């Protein structure tokens, strides 16, 4: 390989990294707008326009950025950057619609799960470093919550990987997201296993608001109790970065659920349908249109998952106390997850 082609590939990757980051941030803010509009409509309000999150971020970037006197400055300023980078990197490992991940083969589900834990840690570290007692309380709550939802999250990942191992055999890495997304799990599990997978999906949906610190698991940044908790001292640019990080995290989680459980593409179905209609419709080459259909379908799936996983739950439930939230993850949700695992195992043996 000569130096030119290496340089070219390298350049292309850099371009793609920027492109995917940009798309991730754009989609995140867009879906945050949808989320706010939908929840406003559910409360019979008119709600902000869809582009409101863009305006908020733009405003936050122009505001004064204050670092408290007693804060540890480099940690205080570094935490939001790390919180933003982690979900962006996770996005590089996830298939987006019909496109396979950029960093395919360099990491798998386990890595993505670790990357998903980083924003919560960054929030907690930023909160501790900001020297405000409110932020300290918020950071402690964040850590408690994180330790609670990691178990159900790990159970779901392990269930999927265990089943994948059975489907694809021992040679392939069952944790690889490409493998998981090209073998939709529902077709291989039968009735009892399907019930188990449904329970696992429920577990993941229960983890979703906790990961995003949305109600009913918004204890770490509870506005009315502890004055926005971990974010109490954050202003201007730093707050804006956290804001973006949260929205990108939402996209990453929703994409992860899509990849694990709903990796279906519409274009295959459509193509088959067109072939079935063969004599009537002229056979068209799908090509670019197939990609477009898949992208639109992916965006639609994102919307559905964010609606059921975030907006609906956020409007329907009030905030738990932190001990109740922790209990909720450790006992009922973990039991549901383990039951799901059990059903999948039983379904595979009978």
């Amino acid at each position, binding site marked *: 390989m000569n130096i030119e082609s290496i340089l070219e590939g390298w350049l292309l990757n850099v371009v793609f990294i920027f492109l995917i980051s940009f798309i991730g941030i754009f989609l995140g803010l867009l879906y945050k707008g949808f989320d706010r509009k939908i929840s*406003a409509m559910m409360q019979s309000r008119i*709600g*902000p326009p869809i582009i409101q999150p863009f*305006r908020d971020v733009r405003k936050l970037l*122009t505001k*004064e950025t204050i670092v408290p006197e007693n804060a540890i400055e480099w940690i205080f300023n570094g935490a939001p950057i790390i919180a933003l980078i982690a979900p962006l990197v996770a996005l590089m490992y996830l298939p987006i619609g019909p496109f396979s991940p950029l960093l395919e083969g360099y990491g798998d589900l386990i890595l993505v799960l670790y990357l998903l834990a980083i924003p919560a840690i960054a929030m907690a570290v930023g909160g501790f470093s900001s020297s405000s007692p409110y932020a300290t309380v918020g950071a402690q709550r964040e850590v408690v919550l994180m330790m609670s939802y990691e178990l159900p999250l790990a159970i779901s990942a392990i269930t999927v990987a265990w089943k994948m191992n059975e489907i694809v055999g021992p040679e392939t890495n069952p944790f690889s997201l490409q493998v998981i997304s090209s073998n939709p799990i529902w077709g291989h599990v039968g009735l009892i296993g399907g019930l188990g997978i449904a329970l696992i999906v429920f577990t993941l949906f229960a983890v979703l608001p906790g990961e995003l610190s949305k109600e009913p698991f918004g204890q770490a940044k509870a506005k009315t109790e502890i*004055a*926005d908790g971990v974010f109490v001292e954050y202003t201007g640019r730093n*707050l804006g970065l956290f804001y973006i990080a949260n929205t990108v995290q939402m996209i990453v989680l929703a994409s992860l659920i899509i990849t694990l459980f709903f990796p279906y593409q519409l274009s295959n179905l459509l193509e088959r349908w067109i072939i079935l209609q063969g004599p009537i419709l002229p056979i068209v080459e799908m090509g670019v249109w197939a990609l477009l259909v898949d992208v639109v379908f992916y965006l639609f799936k994102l919307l559905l998952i964010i609606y059921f996983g975030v907006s609906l739950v956020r409007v329907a439930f009030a905030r738990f106390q932190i001990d109740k939230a922790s209990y909720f993850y450790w006992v009922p949700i973990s039991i549901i997850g383990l039951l799901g695992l059990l059903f999948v195992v039983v379904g595979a043996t009978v």
Partner: protein
Amino acid sequence: MKLSKTFDKSLWVFHVNSGSCNACDIEIVSTVTPRYDVERFGIELVGTPRHADVLLFTGPVIKKTKERVLRIYEQTPDPKVVMVIGNCAGTTGVYYDSYAIEGPIDTLLPDDAHLIYVTGCPVRPENIINGVKEAWLYLEKLRGDQV
């Protein structure tokens, strides 16, 4: 620092009770209810002055809250607008000449603070929304100054 045009459409509001009788606070809360829904203008109630663009002060500043009011004003990042909600916040109103108060807010805040008066006892939610409009006018002026 140059303000973007969209700054107006994303005002985050922090609400401080500087000694009011609580009626104005309730009227403020009613502006975020479905009937008035200020979120359609991008206005949001936030939990800390650090996130705020607009400070809502209700009530005359009493001896106990004077320090807090000044501190909260200083904690808010620039650019910021202060809305003085209610007659008693603007002029001490029904608390006129009370031994417990330190005077209306405008005598305490620094001179460069931009104040918007919303009158009424208690204020009507419509009037608060009108005050937001005046905040927009002020921000427009601020933009004009700095372009």
